[in-house]
């Protein structure tokens, strides 16, 4: 669903704004064929060449255009990491990187098609805004906003979605009031809500973990905070620690484990294996809160 929404919204942006360009590396190229027919100079499919995809985006940005680029997360980020670092960041230009697949949507394809480390990799670089939508209806506004400036933006699309969209997920948005704070990033919200049923916790949601809403975190944290993220566990540990500097607190970071799960199945199977389904989350949170 998120991928379809991305294709519709980006096709609309290409129609509306001549500054917008799209660079593909075969993934989703067929879905953008109508846009490519209308805008052959701005919808570019470089073939299975992800380094070039990012380099071309950097070059387009150097001429004043606003490039969007798109592939599976492991190819757009892991494989092309140095291009993101140098062809965008070091050149002082930006782009909008829209990935699919996330941590384990490609469950049956295996680890080659999975990128639990994408957000952690971007955390080593300067100036990336990271959106992790929890529902497909949150995606179009992210893309429209990103089209209007020149900064570096990452939009991490996933198969897993929450039941409903939250229009104002850029900051921490409180959905349940209690005492210890549990922060759910993107599609982790519904499992977190289910996992914390009956527990005395505050549940806050964000679909924009970078920049992390440090002010909101300081306001909402009393003494304990649990971060639940759909990518590598602990990715936000430094950001949370920085936000809470000087405040005595205990923190737990839940997310995808480092150990490769050499099994196939569905994303639900992998969520369960990493303890990111509702029962797994509940067990971890109850254990942490004592």
């Amino acid at each position, binding site marked *: 669903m998120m991928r379809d929404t991305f294709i519709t919204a980006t096709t609309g942006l290409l129609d509306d704004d001549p500054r917008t360009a799209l660079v593909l590396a075969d993934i989703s190229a067929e879905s953008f064929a109508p846009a490519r027919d209308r805008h052959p100079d701005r919808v570019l499919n470089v*073939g299975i060449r992800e380094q070039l995809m990012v380099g071309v985006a950097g*070059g387009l940005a*150097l001429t*004043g255009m606003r490039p969007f680029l798109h592939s599976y997360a492991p190819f757009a980020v892991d494989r092309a990491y*140095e291009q993101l670092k140098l062809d965008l960041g*070091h050149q002082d230009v930006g782009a909008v990187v829209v990935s699919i697949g996330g941590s384990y949507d490609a469950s049956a394809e295996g680890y080659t098609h999975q990128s639990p480390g994408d957000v952690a990799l971007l955390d080593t670089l300067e100036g990336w805004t990271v959106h992790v939508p929890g529902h497909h209806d949150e995606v179009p506004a992210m893309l429209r906003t990103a089209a209007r400036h020149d900064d570096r933006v990452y939009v991490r699309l996933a198969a897993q979605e929450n039941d409903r969209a939250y229009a104002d997920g850029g900051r921490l948005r409180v959905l349940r009031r209690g005492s210890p704070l549990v922060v759910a990033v993107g599609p982790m919200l519904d499992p977190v809500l289910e996992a914390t049923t009956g527990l005395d916790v505050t549940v806050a949601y964000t679909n924009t973990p970078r920049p992390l809403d440090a002010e909101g975190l300081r306001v909402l944290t009393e003494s304990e905070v649990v971060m639940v993220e759909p990518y590598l566990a602990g990715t936000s540990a430094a950001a949370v620690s920085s936000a809470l500097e000087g405040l005595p607190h205990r923190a737990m970071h839940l997310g995808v484990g480092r150990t490769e799960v050499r099994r196939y199945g569905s994303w639900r199977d992998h969520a369960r294996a990493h303890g990111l389904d509702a029962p797994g989350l509940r067990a971890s949170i109850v254990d942490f809160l004592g």
Partner: protein
Amino acid sequence: MTATAVQPDQLGPLLSRITGDQKHAPSAHSTLDVLWVLYDRVLRITPATVDAPDRDRFLLSKGHGPAAYYAVLAAKGFFPEQWLDGLGGWDSPLGHHPDRVRIPGVEIGTGSLGHGLGLGVGVALGLRAQGFSRTRTFVLLGDAELDEGSNHEAIAYAAATRLPITAIVVDNRSSTHGWPGGIAARFPGWDVSVVDGHDRDRLERALEPRHDRPNLVVAEVEPK
């Protein structure tokens, strides 16, 4: 600092002014004549037009050994000759690899090999999409730089899309395993010319004409 007053023989003193513990010195001068011909005879760019949207673009992909690049830019008035002193120092805008954010007239920051051609393809596509049909894009690489696989992604795509971009490979035979069969064989679908990298008139004749598809100029110089 007026560009037209500078003669090629003034480059020697400028080069000698570039001091400090500069790395990769031997390769620097391999590019001097190509760079001079580009900035003196081919490129439509001056210090006054470094931000003009329709300026010709020159991208130094081979960021190693930038002394010749800096000397030519200084000779053409893109920055003061005094900048050539103290290369690589804390207070110098000039590093051992160029940074576009620090140096007027430098289109891309490079150093890590294999990035310029992909960026150049993007620049040429961006110019085409915006209707700057007279604007040309040139990328300078080294023969050893072609070892980086990223170049070959750009070479194939430029050929497939008949992109009007000019790549100049300065060949000083520094690629560890060489290019049996020649460098041109790695650029299928490109127009190709091979010239003496120190013959300024021949370089000009190779670089000046416009092509309706990608164009490779191999500038051969003495082996490193």
